[in-house]
């Protein structure tokens, strides 16, 4: 009964490839997020969706495209992967009424070689 789940947990791929990371939450939340955490542990918000609508779209290369098929799912597709994309990607969710209380998934460690 995992609250926020992500697949895969590890992803190793070559430069130029396209990959997707999937996220699902079973908490009944209406807002979901994608974060990138670099090697220095800095957390950077990438996208946020509320009720399947994009509400935050930080300065992220357009090679990154989120998709929210329903309120419980938020996937991240990355085109033409680059070395600098190597990081841990976290999905999170919250109620829109308490956005400060976010529940994070276990993370996907992406390594681009």
């Amino acid at each position: 009964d995992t609250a926020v789940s992500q697949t895969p947990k590890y992803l190793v791929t070559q430069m130029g490839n396209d990959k997707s990371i999937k996220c699902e939450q079973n908490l009944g939340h209406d807002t979901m997020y994608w974060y990138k955490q670099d090697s220095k542990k800095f957390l950077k918000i990438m996208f946020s969706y509320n009720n399947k609508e994009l509400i935050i779209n930080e300065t992220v290369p357009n090679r990154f495209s989120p998709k929210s098929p329903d309120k419980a799912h938020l996937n991240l597709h990355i085109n033409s992967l680059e070395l600098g994309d190597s990081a841990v990607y976290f999905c999170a969710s919250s109620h829109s009424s308490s956005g400060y209380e976010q529940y994070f998934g276990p993370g996907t460690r992406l390594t681009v070689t």
Partner: protein
Amino acid sequence: QQQVKQSPQSLIVQKGGIPIINCAYENTAFDYFPWYQQFPGKGPALLIAIRPDVSEKKEGRFTISFNKSAKQFSLHIMDSQPGDSATYFCAASRGSNYQLIWGAGTKLIIKP
């Protein structure tokens, strides 16, 4: 205006000591200040949070102190244990804005 500055970057404390992590903000519109704890290989998890109308909040061994006039807040861990070793993040949010503004994180090591 949107930044949250966190210090120190890393901290080593002996077991039983009281590590203190500090954060400062500029935007007075922030109205919620959570702290998150992240263990290696895991996602961050909400630890404790405070609103600016409260000067102190305790949950177990964890205490947030809030100084509204100085625009600073800090996390204290009483009777620290090796199991508290983790990275701690402070953050701030503004009303119904969904975005958390994150500090840079503090890697805390509690030595046995």
